[in-house]
């Protein structure tokens, strides 16, 4: 009988208990719709000091708030209840401040669930946590180092904006500054014994110039080379792969160059040995050759094959650059003189393209290959120089022609003046009534 009574009680209580349990389980993953009537958390937290303060205005910029999620979605509790004791009670599922170690997992509750994320953004990746775990940050966090970056350090918290928002900390134009907050702080990074000059170097780089000055959002920033969620320094063997994602031709040419094998043998990373890693300044022709600023002479010495090749490459580049400059100057002078030289000026851009191509071909470190590009450029530059010279000759011819024409006009004017004077003197003599003073 007791067993029967127990069974009956269980039959009645189990659905009740289950119904109590289920909402608590769902609270792990916030409901998409705005089921919450109010958000009483902000009533107090909007007037609390910094550490605990979150204003309604600040939270309104958060992408989660915009999608209908509230404080409860991450911190738990009951925002419908005005009583702080009850709303922030354990019974209401309140978690309080999230422990740094728990943050990646908390975010992943939603962001690693494709079915859940699909309702907001079907194209959004859901592998951030698994990637993060492979990063230096993730590994160190797992080992108990809570100083490393977790989701909120890069993405911000309570005013977390989507990466496409220019004010987002992970918008391409802000990524380097976001990373630098830790990586440029020498005292914060002291325990890791890694350099803190990356941001200073990057700020002088051609990549930074493209991104920050020219506003080219496709230009590389920290995450482009290091990855974002799986951020880690690329190994020596992988540097060339990283650079080649954009600099395809340079990488192909370098791969077939004699340097590839030599660098591998010396354990030197492909691109950064000559171009540096973060402070990648705009390359110029002085990098190559045997001059004071040459990078080649750091390894090659006078007389070796590389030294001779470097000298030859530099000579060819200088020759084409000088030819382009001469053509440019004479065409500029002709243009300033009002001559129509837009066609040769347009063609000169082909010579400039050939020089650019030659500068790419340098990565083969084969003077013979370079020669083909130089020849094309030289032919165009010479043709354009001749066009400029011809335009200047034409200008001079016009001015000489003008001089003769003006002399002729002046002579006609003088002749006319003399003729008028003569006929008027004659008129005065014949007919004094028509006065010609």
């Amino acid at each position: 009988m007791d067993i029967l009574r127990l069974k009956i009680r269980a039959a009645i209580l189990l659905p009740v208990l289950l119904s109590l349990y289920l909402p608590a389980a769902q609270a792990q993953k916030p409901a998409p719709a705005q089921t919450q009537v109010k958000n009483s958390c902000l009533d107090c937290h909007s007037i609390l000091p910094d550490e605990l303060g979150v204003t309604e205005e600040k939270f309104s910029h958060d992408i989660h708030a915009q999608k209908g999620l509230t404080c409860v979605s991450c911190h738990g509790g009951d925002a419908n209840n005005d009583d702080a004791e009850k709303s922030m009670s354990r019974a209401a599922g309140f978690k309080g401040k999230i422990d740094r170690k728990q943050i990646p997992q908390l975010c992943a509750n939603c962001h690693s669930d494709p079915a859940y994320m699909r309702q907001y953004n079907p194209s959004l990746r859901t592998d951030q946590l698994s990637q993060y775990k492979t990063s230096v940050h993730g590994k160190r966090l797992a080992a108990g180092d809570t100083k490393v970056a977790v989701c909120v350090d890069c993405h911000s918290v309570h005013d977390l904006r989507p990466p496409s928002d220019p004010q987002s900390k992970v918008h391409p134009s802000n990524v380097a500054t976001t990373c630098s907050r830790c990586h440029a702080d020498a005292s914060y990074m002291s325990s890791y014994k890694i350099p803190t000059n990356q941001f200073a170097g990057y700020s002088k780089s051609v990549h930074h110039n493209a991104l920050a000055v020219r506003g080219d959002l496709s230009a590389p920033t920290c995450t482009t080379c290091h990855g974002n969620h799986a951020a880690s320094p690329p190994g020596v063997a992988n540097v060339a792969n990283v650079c080649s994602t954009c600099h395809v031709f340079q990488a192909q040419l370098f791969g077939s160059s004699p340097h590839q094998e030599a660098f591998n043998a010396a354990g030197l990373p492909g691109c950064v040995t000559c171009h540096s890693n973060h402070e990648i300044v705009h390359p110029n022709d002085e990098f190559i050759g045997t001059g004071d600023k040459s990078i080649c002479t750091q390894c090659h010495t006078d007389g070796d094959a590389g030294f001779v090749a470097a000298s030859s490459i530099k000579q060819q580049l200088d020759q084409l650059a000088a030819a382009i400059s001469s053509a440019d100057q004479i065409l500029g002078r002709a243009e300033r003189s009002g001559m129509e030289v837009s066609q040769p000026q347009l063609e000169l851009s082909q010579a400039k393209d050939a020089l650019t191509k030659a500068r790419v071909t340098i990565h083969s470190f084969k003077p013979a290959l370079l020669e083909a590009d130089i020849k094309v450029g030289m032919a165009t530059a010479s043709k354009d120089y001749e066009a400029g010279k011809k335009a200047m000759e034409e200008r001079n011819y016009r001015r000489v022609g003008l001089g003769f024409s003006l002399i002729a006009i002046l002579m006609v004017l003088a002749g006319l003046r003399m003729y008028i004077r003569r006929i008027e003197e004659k008129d005065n003599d014949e007919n004094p009534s028509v006065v010609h003073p």
Partner: protein
Amino acid sequence: MAMFSSLRNWVDERFGWNELIAPLRKKTVPRHKLSYWYFLGGITLFLFIIQVLTGILLLLYYRPGATEAFESVQYIMTQVQFGWLVRSIHSWSANLMIFTAFAHMFSVLFLKAYRKPRELTWLTGMVLLFLVLGFGFSGYLLPWNTLAFFATKVGTEITGQVPLVGKPLMVFLRGGEDVTGATLTRFFGFHVAVLPGLATLLIGVHLLLVQRFGISVPPRLQAEWMAKPANQREMKFFPNFLLRELMAWYVALGVLGALAAIIPWDLGVKADPFVSAPAGIKPEWYFLFMFQTLKLIPSKVAGIDGEVLGILGFGVIALLWLLIPFFERDHASRTRQWITGIAVFALAYITGMTIYGHFAP
């Protein structure tokens, strides 16, 4: 000389040449310290003739059309023998013609040459001035370069602001809603057929009227000469005045040649309708005073659109300017003082606004 005489005799026997030019031989031109202003009309005519001749030469190679116009002008300037000279002279003489036409109009105002019986001479002259501006506006687009394209866009947009007829007029001028190849073909038609036809007809009437009424003497000088006929000075129209006019034409030719050779007219960059307008786009200098005025008018004046108000204002001023000779009825001397005052103000305003418009950002 003998050959010339026999040719003249031959013409005279058949057409009565001596009889035909007899009035010209008798015709005289007043001679005083302001006589030089009389040459401006003739110089404008000379520049018009230059326009017609160089225009015909350009027509041999110019191809109207959005895909060919720029290239054809480029070809004229670089490949055709003396093409650069013809094109530069055409462009420079167009600008000089507009300048001398304005100068002629103001000299007529200041010398009071518009007064009775020369009202129709003034009217035809004013219509010719408007036609000359029309030549400038339509011809500016023909090389189909960036500046011309966007200046035409702005210019026709301003036309579109005229109440009631503005929009249809703009569509008519453009040959559609936007400035396209159709606008270029249309402007080409106006520039080489409609406007030259009208201008030639009006120049004929204008010259006929000048010949009929003779050259005006400023009122003050006329009164002085009437009081003291002995002070009156004049010269024969033929050949004395005509030879002097010929000298003025030669000077104009020299200036034109020098400008064309030293500062050849720029071709610019081919128009691309899909790029945004260059910053600070401005019309040609002769429209600059109107453009700058429209820019300075507030967007709303007493509830009326500022630009519409400005355009209507210029329209009314142009109409009143056209009718200037008809305001002189009673109190002629007082009216003339008023007209002189207004002319001085207009000249200062046009000059000032043009300079301001040139340097304004």
